[in-house]
């Protein structure tokens, strides 16, 4: 990477201190045992098919048109949506579909293993591309023709399933930004290690799922995005090597998990609408008051002018 | 002065060629279906692909009312040189080569026939074993002919260098990669041999004045020979263009 002139750069040969700490270089089997507590459940006490609770809040960024903050226990993601503007970059003909520009960025301090650079590297660009295919299906881009809408995601802390968290945050941010969408969508991730399915994996489980091993069992990570309308799958990303029937089993489990998220999103959106409605009422009443004062002021002046 | 080892005692070069001998040129026109004209040319181990699109409507920015805009792009495949290049194009050298390519080819094309339009010429070097620029010009000429673009004459390019045998100099034609790397002088000529005019002349390193004439005439002679070879290939291509049997599978 050529030296970045626009930022302050540390020494090139700097390497994370965790590398020299004792528990860094552990073999595959030790790590695999480390995933379970004594009675066979996952360390944080969850069942294999139990997902982490999803905490979320919308309208966290005042300047953005719509924004959302999603927390999957330790995975923290912020997403903001800006309203359409002219298409950036050269544009040779009128595009009948609105363009959607997506960018997913890891915070430099977000990954436990090593510090990520400030400039976007290849796998962040790949993540942005996957993220874009997942959300563009639900957005009716014919409504904002020849315009470009920006969706930015910033991952504060990465503890597994950050693509799924980003997609969920994007769905809530888009609803908060009142963007024309076909329906709400949600996403979930599952990891497969030694033929065992882990729903909503933590970073340690994800790292193990992608770690090269010599045993011939299924291993990999699958992220599924489902749109509520007819339960259509809008995006399916899979890495690792998994045979067909295990894959189908994972897809079914993920479909249920995504379905569980839908009511949660719906309640949240309905609460937001009520709040905005109340605010609007307050705003209208103030406006009425101001108009009244103005009108009786005008009456006074006409009186003064008349008797002059 | 480098060069004694370039010529053996019997006057043969490192790859066994005589000083005034071209490398084996093999070429084929109409290699691709989508571009208007395409050509593949092998000059020894230097392999080049050329494609021509156009003449088509020019981009607003580059529009010129009196003649056609020739837009060239020269890019070398990452595996073309023995040492892997990490960026195929966009560095200064390929931009310079594109400029030279445009200069040589716009001298050959009848530009005044297509005002306000544009011809795109793309060259991809698959394997570079010396003389990549000359192979590109020759391949581009064949691609232009395949595309039916009217040309004033064949644009051929050739390099020549000088080596020492005993005490008197010997001009070497069509310099290979090894001879280029040996640091000898390398004169590149892009010419229109039939109308005997020179489109581009470029020389690296230093050459004494009175040897210049020897090297220059050898290069011009090389261009004339190349023109004959290209002409033969074009006539062959057109002659058996429609009677050729279908592709024989192994």
């Amino acid at each position, binding site marked *: 990477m050529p030296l970045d002139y626009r930022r302050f750069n540390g020494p090139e040969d700097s390497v994370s201190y965790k590398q020299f700490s004792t528990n860094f270089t552990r073999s595959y089997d030790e790590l695999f045992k480390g995933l379970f507590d004594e009675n066979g459940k996952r360390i944080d006490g969850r069942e294999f098919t139990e997902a982490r609770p999803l905490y979320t809040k919308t309208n966290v960024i005042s300047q953005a048109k719509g924004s959302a903050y999603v927390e999957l226990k330790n995975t923290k993601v912020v997403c903001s949506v800006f309203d359409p503007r002219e298409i950036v970059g050269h544009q040779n003909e009128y595009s009948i579909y609105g363009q959607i520009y997506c960018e997913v960025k890891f915070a430099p301090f977000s990954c436990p293993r090593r510090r990520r650079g400030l400039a976007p590297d290849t796998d962040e660009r790949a993540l942005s591309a996957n993220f874009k*295919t997942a959300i563009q299906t639900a957005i009716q881009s014919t409504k904002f023709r020849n315009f470009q809408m920006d969706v930015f995601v910033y991952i504060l802390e990465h503890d597994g399933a950050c693509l799924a968290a980003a997609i969920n945050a994007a769905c809530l941010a888009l609803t908060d930004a009142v963007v024309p969408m076909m329906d709400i969508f949600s996403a979930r991730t599952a990891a497969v290690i030694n033929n065992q399915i882990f729903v909503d994996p933590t970073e340690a489980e994800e790292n193990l799922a992608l770690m090269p091993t010599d045993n011939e069992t299924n291993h*990999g990570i*699958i992220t599924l995005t489902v749109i509520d309308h007819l*339960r259509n799958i*809008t995006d399916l990303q899979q890495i690792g*090597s998994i045979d067909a029937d295990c894959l189908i089993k994972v897809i079914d489990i993920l479909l249920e998990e995504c379905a569980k998220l839908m009511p949660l999103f719906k309640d949240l959106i309905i609460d937001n609408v009520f709040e905005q409605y109340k605010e609007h009422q307050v705003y209208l009443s103030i406006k009425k008051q101001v108009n009244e004062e103005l009108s009786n002021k005008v009456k006074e002046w006409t009186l003064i002018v008349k008797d002059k | 002065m480098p060069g004694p080892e370039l010529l053996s005692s019997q006057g043969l070069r490192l790859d066994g060629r005589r000083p005034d001998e071209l490398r084996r040129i093999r070429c*084929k026109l109409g290699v691709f279906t989508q571009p208007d004209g395409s050509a*593949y040319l092998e000059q020894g181990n230097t392999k080049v692909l050329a494609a021509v699109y156009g003449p088509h409507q020019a981009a607003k920015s580059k529009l010129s009312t009196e003649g056609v805009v020739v*837009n060239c792009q020269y890019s070398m495949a990452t595996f073309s040189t023995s040492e*892997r290049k990490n960026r195929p194009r966009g560095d200064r050298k390929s931009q310079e080569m594109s400029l030279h390519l445009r200069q040589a080819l716009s001298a050959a094309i009848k530009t005044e026939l297509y005002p306000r339009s544009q011809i795109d010429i793309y060259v991809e070097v698959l394997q570079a074993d010396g003389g990549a620029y000359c192979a590109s010009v020759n391949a581009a000429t064949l691609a232009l002919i395949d595309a039916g673009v009217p040309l004033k004459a064949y644009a051929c390019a050739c390099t020549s260098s000088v080596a020492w045998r005993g005490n008197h100099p010997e001009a070497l034609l069509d310099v290979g990669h090894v001879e280029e790397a040996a640091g000898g002088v390398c004169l590149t000529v892009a010419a229109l041999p039939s109308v005997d005019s020179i489109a581009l002349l470029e020389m690296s390193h230093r050459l004494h004045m009175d040897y210049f004439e020897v090297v220059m005439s050898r290069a011009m002679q090389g261009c004339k020979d190349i023109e004959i070879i290209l002409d033969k290939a074009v006539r062959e291509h057109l002659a058996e263009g429609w009677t050729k049997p279908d592709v024989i599978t192994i």
Partner: protein
Amino acid sequence: MAGMLLSNAERFYIWDGVEENFRSDGRSNKDYRPMELETDVVSSASGSARLRLANTDVLVCVKTEIDTPKSDKPGLGSIEFFVDCSANATPEFEGRGGEQLANRISNLLQRAYHSSQAFNLKQLCIFEGKQCWKLYVDILILECGGNLCDAVSLAVKAALFNTRIPFVKAALMDGGNIDLQLSDDPFDSKRLEVGTAPLLVTLCRMDEENIVDPTAEEETCIAVSIVVGVSGNPALYTSSEDTTPSDHKCTTISMSGNGGILPDAMKIVIAEGITAAKCLDEALGRTLLQERNRTNLQKKDSYGFLK
């Protein structure tokens, strides 16, 4: 693909054709177009292959370099994919035009080859923790005639099959550095076990039908396409019978285009993808073995683009 203008009438013509399982060029939904494959086209590379799928033309070259392995994976070499869309294919690829497509394909390949069951990087290790081979797989796209992913994955597997890695003896000197002896005879080299390398199959959905190997025209009128990477069966790639045939596993799945797909339709797509990849694998294995026996290691006269 690029500059492909289709009127609505032509689209409906293609859609109706697909419904009756009889496409515009006479193929059924599950047929591939004729392919031409040739290996060892570039002499300066360790392994190369050129594949022509109707009018899609791809040239793949593998170059090897000695590199130090990453600290968290001491015993493994590394493989890197670089895709370059040459402007020969379409004027749009001039300059940085083809970068988005190139990134998409190289990401797909990087994910497909990620699992050790797809491509075992242990065979690239020279000396644990100190020296290993790094494979640069450079893919040059010369012409786009639709279905780029399949053509690229086939050409990559053929190029890796054709790759020759020279024997290297590594000895640990005192003071921790390594002394490498490279054998001088160029033909004294070993091949890579590339049997399990994955093949990408693009399945495109046109309302209810799935078609394989779309042409450029068909690609412009599909809603969603799913790329399935399926690992190969090593038995097909060695003449000796002792290698155990391993079943085909999915090494990567990715969707593109904006459209949704019903879950059970997705299951059918995955099954079809695996069967299509299986027969592609057999065809590739047969031709590569056939070519290797015929040329038995000498470099034959390469047709290249002269045919």
